[in-house]
């Protein structure tokens, strides 16, 4: 078909903008990886020379490694907590049409809409009022609430695709509820659980608004520590931490994809 000059201009503009957008999506991650191998002492781009000195420096930086370990601990505990409670809840409400089920669903989803800082502040105030000292446990509690919506959404989607006849069959053939869950329900919703865990882990590891209020000197977490470092100076070690996080996330993504077909879960959102 003949295209008019106007259409050529349209396709050209769209293509150009699309290319620019793709570059924009890729650039920051690439930039972080490149700058983390700089041999210089500033964030000068392009790096004047190449080295792994900042990664080596990182190994010696206890004040960064400690928060990283805390962050991992919190994220693992919050993931286990939200995956257990969230999967149970999703099984309970995902297929129910009652008004209470809808109400609970909105309640469990609300941490996604609500500005999380208000929630973080409110938890801190309640703990203060009740004279509960901040600890790893209080931090994990806050993180669980934030991570649960992701689990419910992904597991809920899997539960809705589950054929209820299979469960009825298993029960009527004499299997116990627990056996049915283990042998029928769980294998069928496993993908949803894996995807939910993956996103829950990332959102806990990355969480700022809750940790900002609930983490103290003993439970300092990585994002807050990095933020504090960058507030003060443009420390190149942050580039090395970033490089580690990017690579670890990519490995995690590949693992989750193998285990649970994450790509499909993301696109079905």
């Amino acid at each position, binding site marked *: 078909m003949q295209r008019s000059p106007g259409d050529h201009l349209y396709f050209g503009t769209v293509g150009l903008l699309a290319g620019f957008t793709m570059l924009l999506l890729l650039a920051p991650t690439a930039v972080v990886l490149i700058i983390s191998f700089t041999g210089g002492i500033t*964030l000068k781009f392009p790096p004047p020379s190449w080295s792994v000195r900042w990664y080596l420096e990182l190994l010696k930086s206890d004040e960064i490694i400690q928060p990283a370990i805390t962050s991992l601990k919190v994220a693992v505990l919050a993931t286990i907590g939200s995956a257990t409670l969230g999967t149970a809840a999703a099984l309970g409400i995902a297929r*129910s049409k009652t008004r209470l089920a809808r109400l609970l669903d909105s309640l469990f989803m609300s941490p996604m809409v609500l500005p999380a800082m208000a929630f973080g502040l409110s938890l801190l105030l309640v703990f203060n009022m009740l004279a509960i000292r901040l600890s790893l446990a209080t931090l994990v509690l806050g993180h669980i609430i934030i991570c649960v919506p992701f689990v419910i959404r992904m597991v809920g989607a899997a539960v809705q695709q589950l054929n209820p006849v299979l469960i009825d069959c298993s029960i009527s053939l004499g299997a116990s509820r627990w056996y049915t869950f283990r042998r029928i329900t769980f294998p069928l919703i496993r993908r949803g659980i894996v995807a939910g865990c993956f996103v829950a882990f990332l959102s806990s590891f990355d969480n700022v608004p809750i940790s900002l209020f609930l983490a103290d000197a003993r439970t300092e977490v990585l994002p807050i520590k990095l933020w504090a470092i960058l507030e003060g100076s443009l420390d190149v070690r942050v580039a090395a931490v970033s490089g580690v996080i990017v690579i670890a996330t990519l490995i995690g993504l590949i693992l989750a994809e193998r285990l649970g077909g994450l790509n499909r879960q993301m696109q079905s959102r």
Partner: protein
Amino acid sequence: MLLRSPAMKQMLPAMPLATLFLVTFVVPLLVLVFLSLFRTPQFLEMGPDQYVRFFSEGFSLQVLFDTLVLGVEVALLTLLLSYPLGLAYLAASPTGRTIITFLILLPLLTSTVVRTFAWIVILGREGIVNSTMLSLGLWDQPARLLYTWGGLVVALAQIQLPLMALPVINSLLRVDRNLMKAAEGLGASQLRIFFTVILPLTLPGAIAGWLLVFAAAVTAFITQTLVGGGRMILMPLYIYQQAMGVQEWPFAAALSLIFTVAVIGIVGVIGAVSRRFMRGIDAA
């Protein structure tokens, strides 16, 4: 009795989480409302002083207004970038589509601090933009890009872009290709097809993304403080300063409630208006 019905029994597994939410989510938020009604940080007398302070002080209102404007600007910019990307996705081969999906998911999966840090490297004095412009001879001295409003808007737009691109692409995929072919066959220009066929049919996705980006951008504490700088006070930093800095607990509580109501209000109103508007389109 309804409570003993099988439907209730089926919901039993949800009860542990429901209890946890009640104790650590609903009650704390009610406590937040309660505490915002005290006159001083010593919690002695009650009164609406904090809210009076917020609405009578030009400064606080300005901070709220700036924050909401930031959200609107960032969301509009992501919208502008998402459509070309989505159209390219539609036209791309399966491999091309996989690459685009990967590119969109990549920033979504990298930590916020990392993405923000990248923008510090890009916008900094010796950053990519400055060194490119200087070496091309377009600028004769490095420009200040970090700690500016424009820099913040662009950085946030890039950081939140996946939230817009995913719903936009999803709704683009649902548009019937025959409609575009029909319009083309009838002689419509591509631009006209975009505005009369593609855009109206993908509006639900665009609005869904718009709301997600808006809500994410106004609450992005890390990016706001690091790319915007400490002197650019927006709601999240304001709340943090009042709570953790000067320990004005009641005022911090009131601020976070006002902010929450403003954000949820805007998201709710736009969501409701657009749903009504969509129904109009369906009927037509």
